[in-house]
């Protein structure tokens, strides 16, 4: 059996015990002051209640081909005040960037400005249809082109595909462009993609999704990839390497330019996972390093809101070699010879794109991409400007190193103490013998009012703790974080009672949850008590 060394308890054991000497505060409602217990809409609502007033429909002879829906659907309704209360109460159970530091490594939890929300909601952006005549949305297409220009200037690349809907979708886009480029050169049978063992799971998943065999590339003792190791793994069968830079350990790959060189020499392409772009915006351009394709997470580097898990947006910048293969729609300009300004247009079909001299590999989504996120990212970029964006990267790297400096004597780093980029990586070596695990430590952070850092990623490090503060934290905030972490670290290493960790979290809306039970007895939807009647029965 392939052994997995990331195993950790997934069912609470002993976390239900009350701390010694405390008396529970019992309430009749189960509420705790401002923290309300809230039922499901299926328990509170009803099929007849509604929060929307609609006029009575005109009586018509239905033209539904006899396919009218009969019977109930199973959708509860609430009046408007009940709806507000339900979702406001739910919201109050969530941690958020707006309420505290969110040091999740590789997620770039920076400030989400409300100006961006306001701009995205301008009717001229928010209330336009992707298929209304292009002559009626010229400003929107030009906004897309403006975003493209910014991304190209920041990355030093030749072209950008805007349509991918998230980072992993962007990876698929970049890799498909690479596959198409090989096919065009007659190298369609290259079947291998090189992926470092420290890579995020989306990398090998994307490669496998496309039918490539994934060949791992080992890392050195310092966590980085050696050009020699890449050279050893290359062959005429390798289509590409997928490298994250800065890497998932928070380090800039020092041999990246040499890696690009040997990869190109072997006739392969260099895909760069741009999840950690926040460290180098305005400081280093991936195009200058030999990258052929890189996805950008607008919801990380360019602050479009994480929204509880999405939506994202993953435009992909491409080198000149890959540019012709960018997916539909293809942006092009119609130059006017007269006084009217030139217009940007979108070519939506393969035929139209080919007549423009492009050879898109196809289409990745209906319509044009995440316009709402384009506008938000533009507002971010226009607000920061060139100087602001560079300062943001420098502050992000400064903040991560400041945390490293504040914790290096109490927590262990897997590759020794050396400068990191925008995130700092610790392992659990320093917890050995304490009885406290990375998981326990993270849960104790919750009680202190912090969202835990990324834990157990990258997989190549045991009990990994990856901390990314971002440029949005003040020095006071960073100092308080360091102080808190030091206090927790000291408590973990002390000989005293460890219930602060083992019982954590004690102050969150819920204690530790039984993930084992959730997986063994999946309950993925609400069901009414009693036999469920499906409409098909």
């Amino acid at each position, binding site marked *: *059996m*392939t*052994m*997995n*060394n*990331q*195993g*950790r*308890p*997934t*069912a609470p054991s002993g976390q239900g015990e009350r701390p010694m000497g405390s008396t529970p505060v019992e309430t009749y409602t189960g509420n705790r002051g401002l923290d309300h217990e809230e039922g499901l809409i299926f328990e509170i609502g009803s099929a007849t209640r509604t929060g929307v007033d609609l006029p009575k429909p005109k009586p018509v002879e239905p033209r539904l081909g006899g396919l009218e829906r009969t019977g109930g659907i199973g959708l509860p309704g609430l009046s408007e005040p009940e709806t507000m209360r339900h979702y406001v109460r739910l919201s109050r159970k969530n941690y958020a960037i707006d309420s505290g530091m969110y040091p999740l490594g590789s997620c770039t939890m920076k400030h989400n400005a409300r100006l961006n929300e306001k701009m995205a909601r301008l009717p001229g952006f928010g209330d336009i249809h992707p298929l209304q005549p292009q002559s009626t949305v010229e400003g929107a297409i030009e906004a897309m082109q403006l975003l493209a220009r910014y991304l190209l200037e920041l990355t030093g690349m030749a072209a950008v595909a805007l349509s991918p809907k998230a980072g992993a979708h962007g990876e698929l886009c970049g890799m498909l462009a690479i596959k198409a480029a090989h096919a065009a050169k007659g190298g369609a049978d290259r079947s291998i993609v090189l992926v470092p063992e420290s890579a995020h799971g989306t990398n090998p998943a994307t490669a496998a999704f496309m039918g490539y065999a994934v060949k791992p590339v080992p890392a050195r003792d310092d966590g980085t990839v050696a050009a020699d190791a890449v050279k050893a793994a290359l062959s005429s069968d390798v289509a590409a390497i997928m490298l994250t830079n800065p890497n998932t350990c928070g380090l800039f790959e020092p041999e990246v330019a040499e890696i690009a060189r040997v990869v190109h020499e072997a006739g392969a392409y260099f895909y760069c996972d741009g999840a950690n772009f926040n460290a180098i915006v305005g400081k280093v351009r991936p195009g200058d390093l030999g990258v052929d394709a890189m996805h950008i997470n607008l919801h990380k580097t360019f602050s479009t809101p994480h929204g509880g898990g999405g939506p994202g947006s993953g435009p992909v910048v491409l080198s000149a070699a890959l540019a012709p293969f960018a997916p539909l729609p293809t942006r092009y300009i119609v130059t006017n010879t007269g006084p009217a300004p030139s217009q940007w247009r979108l070519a939506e079909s393969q035929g139209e794109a080919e007549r423009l001299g492009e050879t898109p590999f196809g289409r990745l989504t209906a319509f044009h991409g995440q316009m709402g996120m384009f506008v938000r990212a533009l507002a971010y970029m226009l607000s920061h400007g060139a100087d602001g964006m560079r300062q943001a990267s420098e502050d992000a790297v400064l903040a991560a190193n400041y945390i490293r400096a504040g914790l290096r004597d109490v927590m262990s780093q897997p590759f020794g103490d050396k400068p990191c980029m925008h995130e700092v990586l610790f392992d659990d070596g320093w917890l050995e013998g304490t009885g406290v695990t990375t998981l326990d430590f993270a849960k104790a952070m919750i009680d202190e009012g912090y969202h835990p850092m990324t834990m*157990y990623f990258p997989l190549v490090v045991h009990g990994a703790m990856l901390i990314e503060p971002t440029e949005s934290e003040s020095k006071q905030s960073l100092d308080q974080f360091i102080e808190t972490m030091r206090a927790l670290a000291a408590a973990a290493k002390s000989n005293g009672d460890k219930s602060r960790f083992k019982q954590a979290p004690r102050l969150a809306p819920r204690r530790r949850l039984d*993930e*084992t039970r*959730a*997986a*063994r007895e999946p309950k993925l939807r609400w069901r009414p008590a009693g036999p469920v009647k499906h409409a098909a029965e």
Partner: protein
Amino acid sequence: MATEHFSKDHEWVRLDGDTAAIGITKHAAEQLGDVVFVEVPAVGRKVRAGEACAVVESVKAASDVYAPVSGEVVAANADLATTPAAVNEDAEGKAWFFKLKLADKSELARLMDRKAYELFVKENA
């Protein structure tokens, strides 16, 4: 002939005439954590030694289980589908994954006995 054998991949083999029951060791189950799902091979499938033919999942990990020896699958433990927890409760007893009709008994010589396996686990901790 010895009835109990162990592979370096933490599978156990228990011989009973020409058939062998195969599962994962107690040590492997402990490393995995709470087992939530098991996928066993279909009866009739022929497997080679070293071939991945079953999957065992915890909440945070999915691991391939390899056939320690070659043979034909003559039985698969359907109970594990409803009670994956059995792997944590009795990994080396009732939580056998599948039974093989051995193709080549000499392959057993490549495996370890319990003592050697326990030493192997200690050395690689």
